[in-house]
């Protein structure tokens, strides 16, 4: 059934004729150690060569496979380079307007609280036009998972300044470099969101080496588990690159990223309420508001009334 539907889809997206494992002839002694994840459809993506979106799409799919949740997951695609990802992921998908993914994801999750909902967003989408939706979904503690690809530039529209473009970074719309006196400073999303009580897990990762990719996958899995366990909102920020619009080779882009982006956007866990010893965001929030009687859970409040 999947193959038949994909053929009908071929007008939109080029389809890889069959799953890779079926067309590889193994010689004696050879074995397949890695195949395309089931949750990633056998289609050709629209990403530029060397773009980390391909890695991240795959990691998300691998996590859906490993947690065996493709069938109960609904993904929300953004506007940006990954806009077409609704054609790449095998789970049910909804395409949102620019920046609105957290609101759309909220609507889906409220209808299906027992399902898994993720939104996959870029920096212009999440941190600029969709900042209100981002902050409020986070502070509401929506049980959703956000995958945030931060490559410090608007990729799809051709390399304009993003909310996360670095000071003095040259882009199409900051041709003399981002002047912090007129264009202000970049937004650090993990730091910002970690101040909010609704956030259960926030971690910043990158995917510039096999080691960091494995680490990113671990973080991603943790974020999904956090949602499944009902702990709260989770976000994984991926410090990424844009070889095409940065005008660099993929290797050079990773070098530039390590040299300039990582000092500004340090990797690591920014919030983990479970590691802090709380069952969920509600316990953590109550503790944080310890001196405020009205903010305590009703059970703890009963005595005082």
């Amino acid at each position: 059934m999947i193959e038949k539907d994909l053929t009908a889809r071929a007008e939109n997206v080029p389809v890889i004729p069959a799953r890779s494992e079926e067309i590889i002839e193994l010689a004696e002694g050879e074995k397949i150690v890695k195949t395309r994840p089931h949750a990633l459809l056998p289609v050709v993506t629209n990403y530029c060569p060397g773009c980390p979106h391909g890695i991240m799409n795959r990691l998300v799919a691998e996590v859906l496979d490993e947690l065996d949740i493709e069938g109960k997951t609904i993904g929300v695609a953004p506007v940006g380079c990954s806009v077409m990802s609704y054609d790449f992921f095998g789970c049910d998908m909804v395409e949102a307007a620019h920046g609105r993914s957290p609101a759309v994801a909220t609507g889906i999750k409220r209808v299906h609280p027992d399902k898994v909902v993720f939104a996959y967003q870029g920096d212009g989408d999440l941190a600029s036009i969709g900042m209100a939706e981002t902050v409020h979904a986070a502070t509401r503690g929506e049980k959703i998972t956000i995958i945030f690809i931060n490559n410090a530039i608007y990729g799809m529209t051709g390399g304009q300044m993003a909310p996360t473009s670095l000071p003095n970074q040259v882009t199409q719309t900051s041709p003399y470099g981002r002047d912090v006196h007129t264009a202000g400073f970049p937004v650090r999303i993990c730091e910002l969101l970690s101040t909010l009580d609704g956030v259960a897990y926030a971690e910043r990762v990158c995917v510039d080496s096999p080691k960091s990719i494995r680490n990113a996958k671990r973080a991603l899995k943790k974020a999904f588990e956090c949602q499944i366990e009902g702990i709260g909102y989770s976000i994984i920020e991926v410090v990424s690159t844009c070889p095409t619009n940065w005008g660099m080779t993929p290797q050079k882009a990773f070098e530039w990223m390590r040299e300039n982006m990582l000092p500004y956007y340090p990797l690591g866990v920014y919030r983990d309420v479970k590691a802090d010893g709380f069952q969920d965001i509600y316990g953590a929030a109550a503790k944080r508001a310890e001196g405020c009687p009205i903010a305590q859970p009703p059970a703890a409040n009963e005595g005082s009334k």
Partner: protein
Amino acid sequence: MATNKVLMKGNEALAEAALRAGCRFFFGYPITPQTELAAYMSKRLPKEGGTYLQAESEVAAINMVYGAAAAGARAMTSSSSPGISLKGEGVSYIAGADLPCVIINVQRGGPGLGSIQPSQSDYWQATRALGHGDFFMPVFAPSTVQEMANCVYDAFNVADKYRTPVMILADGMLGQMMEPVVMPEPIDPATLPEKPWATCGHGGERFHNVANSLYLVASKLEEKNVERFKRYEIIKATEQRAETFLCEDAEIVLVAFGASARIAHSAVVTAREKGIRAGLVRPITLWPFPVDTLATTFDTARAYLSVEMNMGQMVDDVRLAVNGRAPVEFFGRTGGIIPTPAEVLAQIERIAAEKGLGGCCCTCKNSDEA
């Protein structure tokens, strides 16, 4: 008194009727004069196992509706004029993704922040272009609290049937006023027809569903839009709704919807007492515009008068429908002013005098004793 007849505000009747129509997901944002609707939902929905969510903005609210509608639920949002403008983006995406939902606009005066008093100045926005792109949406315009309750059912049914956003266009007067109302029988959401297109998780049972309005191949988008407009033709042919009052022999036909129709109705009654053959066509759907009902007046009508609470918007649709058969005039008040029956009557009398119709000494059937 019918035991199930209660006194209710229009805003509350819309909310209660939505609940009874199986809507369990409401996403709103405070704005006068629709606030009672959201407040009612916030009180009732949690007790019905539903979700009331006060969004961070109108923009977020409509996108939550988009998500909930894609997920297969009957979902609704409500606002008033300035807030509806903000929802325009989301409505366009919902139309483009062929998703059903209901949007309520309890209109107030505009443009800009305008006033908070009743108005009908969002007619064009509702019937022409709430958002960008090639699309329409059915628009219901109730004129009593009872009709507000009833049309919520129609709105959800039409939305589900044609997979389209549907708007209920009310105004501050209808939203705030109380009238007796008998609530329709409740529907259990579990008994509503299944939505096989919903993005609710495929469970390994089917290929993935996608809710989307993006088509990068031009021919594909054209195909999609043409298909949607074929559906619009069916809607135009089958979903027009209107009511006529004293139109059988009407020479002066008033056309008015919602709150202004109530005033036009009073003016027609008085005009008849004065011997003027006036009648009223009251569109209940503004899109599709009830051209078929209007056509039934062509034989007798010598003039049309569109009565609106704006600077003249629906009058365009009346002119298109009448298509030069008779002059089409306009009377309206704007800014939040409700026209009076006396003002409308004066217009009817002026037209009657100009056309030499009824009400003058020779044909006077009048009267004061009537």
